[in-house]
Every structure is written in C-alpha cells, then in structure tokens.
C-alpha cells in the first residue's frame, strides 16, 4: 500500500502509541448503485494494530483512533480521509478482550462530492 508509512505515522499520532503495524490489506471493489452500470468504487481495507504497555494507554489509544482524530492525522500527512469499518478493540496479552465504546465514524466523504460541494460553496 502506498503511503503506508504516512498512514502508520498518522495512526501513531492519533493513538499516542509508539508502535503501529498494518496487519493485512484487502482490495475491495463495490458497486455504488445497483442501477448504475459502471460506477464502481474500489477501496483498500487495512487492518491496523497499535501496541501499548498499559491498559490506560490502550484505552487512550482506542479513543484516539476515532474517525475524527484519525482523519485529522491522515490529512496532516497528506492522506485522504478513511472510513473506520471496525471500531477499535483492545486485546490484552492475557487473552482478555476489552471493548471500547467510541463514537460512530462519520460517513466517508467521496472526493468528488466534496469537491462539488466546495465548488458550490465558492460559487
């Protein structure tokens, strides 16, 4: 994945963790509308993990990986906004899984619509 280093830097900045890693990536092509013929959207799904030493740090990292914080960090490194597909979860080494309640991420803004909105605003 391109700009993977930039994405990891953004994840580190958003979560406050010192280490982050992309576990897996998957290329997904979806049809945006059933009526449209060729409007296909291709996205890259990436599973990202950050490691911390304490439970408090894990909670803080999960809260920092919200869509809002993450997109701000991504914008700072020049990466388009991303959509949080799976809410952050905390896996302890003992096997305990800590659920973290975060706010639902905002819908992914398509660049074209954003550009169109910006153009309308300017006009």
């Amino acid at each position, binding site marked *: 994945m391109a*700009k993977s280093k930039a994405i990891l830097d953004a994840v580190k900045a958003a979560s406050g963790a010192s280490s982050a890693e992309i576990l897996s990536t998957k290329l*997904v092509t979806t049809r945006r509308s059933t009526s449209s013929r060729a409007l296909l959207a291709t*996205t890259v799904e*990436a599973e990202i*993990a950050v490691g*911390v030493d304490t439970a408090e740090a894990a909670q803080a990292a999960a809260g920092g990986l919200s869509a809002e914080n993450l997109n701000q960090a991504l914008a700072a490194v020049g990466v*388009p906004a*991303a959509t949080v597909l*799976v809410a952050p979860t905390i896996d302890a080494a003992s096997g305990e899984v800590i659920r973290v309640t975060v706010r639902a991420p905002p819908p992914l803004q398509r660049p074209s619509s954003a550009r169109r909105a910006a153009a309308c605003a300017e006009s």
Partner: protein
Amino acid sequence: MIVSPVCAAQKIETSVEEDEDSTSTTTPIPSSALGETTSTPQPLVIALTTTTTSETETTTITTTPSGDTAGEITTTTTTPVEVGETTTEEEGEDAATTPANQVAPETSEIDDDDDDDDGLDNSTSTAIEVTTTPIEKPQSVVREVTTTPAPAPTTTTPKPKSAVLDAPFVVKTKLAFPFSSIEVRSPTVPSALANPIEPHEACRVTCMR
C-alpha cells in the same frame, strides 16, 4: 609251488636249509618281471616263499569277494625276524644273500584264481561303497530389518517478530481507504530510463540534416 611261464624265464632260486636255525628267504620280484605279468594274461604267481622255522611268521589271508566265486585273492605276508646270521646261497648262479641285521623286504603275494579262460582278470575288481553324508549347510537366517527413515528436516522460516502484537495490550481497528489514495510505484526504475542512451553520432548527423 606254481611257477608261471613268465617267472620261469626269470631265474629265481631259493635255498632251503634243513637246519632249524635257518631263516626263510624271500626273493623280491624284479620290477621288470612285474611289468611282464600285467601284459601277459596268465595266472599270476609272482613270488616264491618258503617258511621253515618259527622265526618267520607267515600269515595267509584269503579273501573271497562277495558275488564272485571265481576271483579268490590270497595274500601271504611274510615277516622275517632279524637273525644274526647270514644265509648264503651256495648253489646256483644267482644266490641271494641277506646280510645280518638287515630286514628283508616284505612280500605280498596275490594269487588270482581265475577259472575262466577269457584271459581277463575279472576277480580283482572290488567295489567300495562310500557313503558320504552331506554336511548340512547352515541355514541362512534372513533378518528383516525395518528401517525407519529419518524425518526430513523441517525448514521453518522464522516469522518476523512483531513488536506490536507482542505488546501487553494491542488495539486493533479496520480502516477503508479510497483507491485513489494509493500510489502505484514501480519496484525499480529501469536503467534505460535513468540513463537515456545517447544518440549515435551518425544518427545525430542524419537528424540534423
């Protein structure tokens, strides 16, 4: 005393003394005479033996082969005893003299009484049955050896240790990025593009024209 015609030609004389102390004298048969007897199909009487005193032991063994009555083998063995006297043949031209302290040769006489007139010596054949017990060969022991092949060495590629996943707490999330944000890079830049080939001198001239 039987004298064969063959041996008659050979002049063999034996002196016999009436004295009690006299010893028996055995005249050895010349090899030449033996050779003649084998070639002449006549009854064989090879040697002449006279025993007069007890100083000479005479043993006569008669053997009749089974199934063949015609062939009768008589073997006479004369063993002289040492006598400290010398017997001198006084008469005849070929007197045999046995010196004192000398052992006279032993003589074996084989009398072949072949009755048929075919002239063949058919009585001397003696069948010897030889029974041979075969030695038992040691039985070869077949050993079944089951060899278990050694397990192939398993090559395991060490997985790079992830510092993130080994951390006490791991925060995981899944994000979706638009495809347009992906930047495609070629793994290596071709050297031809990095160092463009300079046009040939002749081509350059042609282009200039």
